Structure formats: C-alpha cells, structure tokens
C-alpha cells in the first residue's frame, strides 16, 4: 500500500509543475500589455517603465516564472490591483461557499442517483427503468443554466417558495443559509445526477450477470443483501471514478450556478476578475483551482485502491 501511495505521489509532482507552467504561460505569453492595462489612461512612459520594473516585467520570462513560483511556495500569491486583497484572503472568504455548494450538490445527486440506479438495475427493462433512463438522457441535454432558469421560474417566481438570489453564511444563520442554497444545489445536482445514475445502472446490470451473484442467489441470501452488498460494492468502483471525473464538471457548473444565483463563491470571484481584468486574482485562482482539482483526482485514486483490494495488492 505504501508503495502504491509513493508511486502516485511521484506522478502528482510533474503534473502540478506542468499546471503551474501552463497557468503562468497563459498569463505571460498572450498578447496585451499588463502594465498598460493596469495604468490605462494614467499611462505615461515613466509610469509604465516604473510599474514594469516594480512588477518584474522587464526580466526574462524564465526568471519571472521562478520568481512567481518562489513567491507562491512562500504563500504569496499576489495582491489584487482592484481590491487590494491578497489572493489568499479572497480565496479564504469564497472557498467555503463554493465547497458547500458542490458538496450539497454532489450529496443530492448521489442520494437520488444511487438508489434509482440500483432499482433500475434490479428491474431492468421494466417501466420504472425505462422512465428513469429516458429522463436521465433528456436531462443530459439540459444545460445547467437552463435548469437554473427553470427552477427559478418554478420555485421563485411562480410558487414563491424559495429565494432566487442571496446568501447568508452558515455560521450566522444555518436555516437561512440552507434556504438560499436549495435552488443552487438542486440545479447542480440535476446536472450531475443523470451521469451517476446511468453509469452505476450500467455497471450494476453487468455485475448482476456475474457468476458470484448467481452463487449468492444459490446461497439463499436476501435480494437486499445481494443488491447492496454483493453487487453494489464491485460497481462502486466505477462510481468513484465517475465522481472523480465529475469534479471538473462540478467546478465548471458551480461557476455558472454561483453567477446566476449571486453566491459569493470562487466562481463569481473568477468571473468578476475576468470582467474587471484583474489578472493577479485570475492567475492565482486558476492555479489554485487547477491544483486542487489535481489533488482531488489523486484522492479519488486512493479511494479506488481502498475499495478494490485487488489494486491494493497489485493485482487488478
């Protein structure tokens, strides 16, 4: 197990380095003069030169990269030119919101998707199965922002049960916080649920054909035990993989949902940074999100090994 962990960690490092390189290149190699953008109409040749020197823009590219990298490893991701906040401060404020949203959405998608998938697999071909599979397929063609509009229309405009926008931190008012989070989380969950359900259902149908299920039946075990222990456990591997792959989509979806529902999360921070051309924030956030994403995938890999003993022992 330790060997497995070490190998995975070793793979992680070059990927992170590559990610940092890519982020840095986007910022530095694309057209547009950073100093000019910042100073805009206050730009004079002296100001520009001074700012460039101050920001280190006059140094060669590779030197700037290492300076940047050095700062980052010390925890200095830069300071926004607009708000004066450091990137880390901004992130610390926004991260909990995004994480809460993604967590609620993922839990919702799993809580709905897993039981449905199991029932569909157990009664595959039946009316419930066909209805659910059809719905899942149709939902896959509904973009996140569309479901958001639909849900807002239904619950906020027509029924007036839930608010369309707004946010209050959990620590201040837990109930209020959840009230604001319901629609956004539901929107995201609707986007995640079909993928989970289809994959798990498909995998379970395949698993249910296996010999060991036939033996489990021949042993006289209850259908519940066969479904939830014998069939679900091997199929859960694919579920974990899919959840891992989904995280990228989840982050993207969270971005849209935060913007639509005006939640003060990382997504909105990013969109705001783009609209106001706040490049420092942009660079820092992109890097941290990408790095976080890579690490999440790493954790998913670990989970995989925990669930499938064959991988742990080097078989598979």
């Amino acid at each position, binding site marked *: 197990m330790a060997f497995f962990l070490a190998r995975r960690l070793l793979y992680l490092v070059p990927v992170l380095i590559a990610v940092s390189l890519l982020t840095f290149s986007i910022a530095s190699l694309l057209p547009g003069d950073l100093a000019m953008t910042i100073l805009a109409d206050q730009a004079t040749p002296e100001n520009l030169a001074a700012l460039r020197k101050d920001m280190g823009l006059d140094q060669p590219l590779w030197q700037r990269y290492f300076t940047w990298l050095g700062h980052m490893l010390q925890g200095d991701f830069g300071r926004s030119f607009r708000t004066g906040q450091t990137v880390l401060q901004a992130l610390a404020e926004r991260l909990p919101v995004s994480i809460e949203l993604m967590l609620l959405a993922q839990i919702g998608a799993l809580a709905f998707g897993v039981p449905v998938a199991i029932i569909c697999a157990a009664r595959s071909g039946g009316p419930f199965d066909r209805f659910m599979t059809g719905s899942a397929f149709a939902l896959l063609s509904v*973009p996140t*922002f*569309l479901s958001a509009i639909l849900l807002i229309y239904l619950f906020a405009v027509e029924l007036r049960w839930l608010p369309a926008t707004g946010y209050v931190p959990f620590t201040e008012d837990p109930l209020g916080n959840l009230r604001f989070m319901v629609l956004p989380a539901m929107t995201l969950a609707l986007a995640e649920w079909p993928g989970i359900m289809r994959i798990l259902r498909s995998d379970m149908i*395949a698993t249910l054909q296996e010999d060991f299920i036939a033996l489990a039946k021949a042993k006289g075990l209850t259908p519940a035990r066969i479904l939830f222990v014998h069939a679900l456990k091997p199929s859960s591997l694919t579920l974990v993989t899919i959840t891992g792959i989904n995280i990228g989509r989840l982050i993207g979806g969270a*971005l849209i949902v935060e913007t639509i529902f005006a939640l003060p999360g990382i997504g909105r921070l990013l*969109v705001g940074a*783009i609209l106001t051309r706040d490049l420092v924030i942009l660079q820092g956030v992109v890097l941290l999100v990408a790095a976080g*994403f890579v690490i999440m995938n790493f954790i998913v890999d670990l989970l995989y090994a925990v669930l499938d003993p064959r991988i742990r022992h080097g078989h598979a």
Partner: protein
Amino acid sequence: MATLELDLAEEAVSQPAKKGKRLGILFWAAIVWMIFAFAVAIFATLLPIPDPAAMNMLARRAPFSATHWLGTDGLGRDELSRLIYGARISLLVGLCAPMIGLTVGGALGLLSGYFRGRAGTFIVGAMDVLLAFPPLILVLAVIAFVGQSILNLTFILGVLGIPAFMRVARATTLTLSRREFVIAAEALGASHARILLRELLPNVILPLLAFFLLGVAVTIVVEGSLSFLGLGVPPPTSSWGSMIAEGRESLDVAPRLAFLPAIAMFLTVLSFNLVGDTMRALTDPRQGAL
C-alpha cells in the same frame, strides 16, 4: 455543465446496442429536427422574416401575433427571427469547434495508437495535463486574456476538445491494430502510411463521427452557458445563450422570452445527443458491430 470529457471509463460501460430497436422513431425525429435547424440557419437570409436587429419600442414583449409569430422581445425585436439568427451562431460555433478536435485529436490519437512507444506516451501525458484543468476555468482564463470574439471562442473550445477526441481515436486504433486485417496488411509489406490511411482511418472515422456529434451537443451547451454569462459571443451578436439571459429579466412578465430559446437549444442538443449516442452504440468496434 457538460464538457468534452467523455472518458474511456464511461465508454467501457456504455450500454450495448439494443438489438431490435436501433433506429426508432426518436432517432428519426432527431434527424428531422437537425435538418430543419440547419436548413433554417443556412437559408436565414432568404426567409421572409423581419430583421432580427430591428427594434420597435412600441411593441415590446408583444404576444404571438400574425406579424410576429413568436412575439417580440424586450426591445421589440421579432423573436422568431432572433431565434433563427441565434441558431446560426450556436450551430456555427457548435460545428466548427469540434471540427478542430476531430481533425487534430483524431490525427494525434491515430498516430499515438498506431506507433505507441515513447511518442504515444508523451502525447497521452500532454493530454492528461490539459485535462488536469477544470475545462470551464481554462476557457474563461484564456478568453479573459485574448478577448471575446467568435473566432477565439471557437478556437479555444476546439482545442479543449482535442484530448477527448484523441482518446477515442487512440482507443479505437489500439483495438483495431490487433485485428487480422491490419496484421495481414503488415504481412503483405504495406507501408505505415498505407496502413494508417487505407486500413485504420476508415474504421476509426466512424466512432469518431459518433463522438463528433456528441461533441457538437456539448459545444452548443458550453457556448450557450458562456454567452448566458456574457462571456461568450460578444454583443451585439446574439446566440441562444444570450437570448436566454435577456429573457431572464422578464421571467415574471413574459417567461416565453427565456423559454423559447431554451426549448430551441434543448431540442437541438437532445437531437445531437440522440443521434450521436445511437451512432456510438452502432460503431463501437469493441462490440464487434463493425
């Protein structure tokens, strides 16, 4: 929100082709809609519809009528013609971006699957790095730096699709290179180029096309989402996404302004998904359907 990340894990467990019901009524309905959408978009300028940019402040948010079949929007512009011109943009980006993925990704996949070795591993590794980014973040970051335009949007969306197409092409090539017809060609002394072009390419193209259709669906969704946020197609050009965003303002008084483009987008994406999914089930070489 969906992005071109259809991983091999999903492919491996996708449902086998339903033997009896391959091309059912839904499939043909989807084809009909696709043709309809294309026809309308291509011949938009020839259709007897009002100018989509012509505003009429006296008839804002007008209901359905003889002069305006689908009513008018918040600035008095004809909704039907806006839908049609929106289709042009969405379909344009939706088709061109995956083209990039198909050609570049397909070529890379074919080469890396056939030659294997270090070059193959390197390409796969490079793609993995690209995939290490949450896609939407990357799109936004690049657009922020290069600026909004239809060309930039199409280009970046296309590039983002390359890893996915590459994986499909590579997987198919790997499966097929072990089949007898390739080994036979090698035994007959065929050159690499000949094997790649004559034997492998025609067989790899089919699953790639199926994937392409799915890619179109995804691209329309991504473009729509970006335009909805105001970060996609730049104004004054409008695509379905920006129309939906505008419609959001009037959800309480005229919800149709949001829902009409929403339905159009949904039907189009659904059609591409249906056709692409059916084609994928039919052409997956691992299931021996070829």
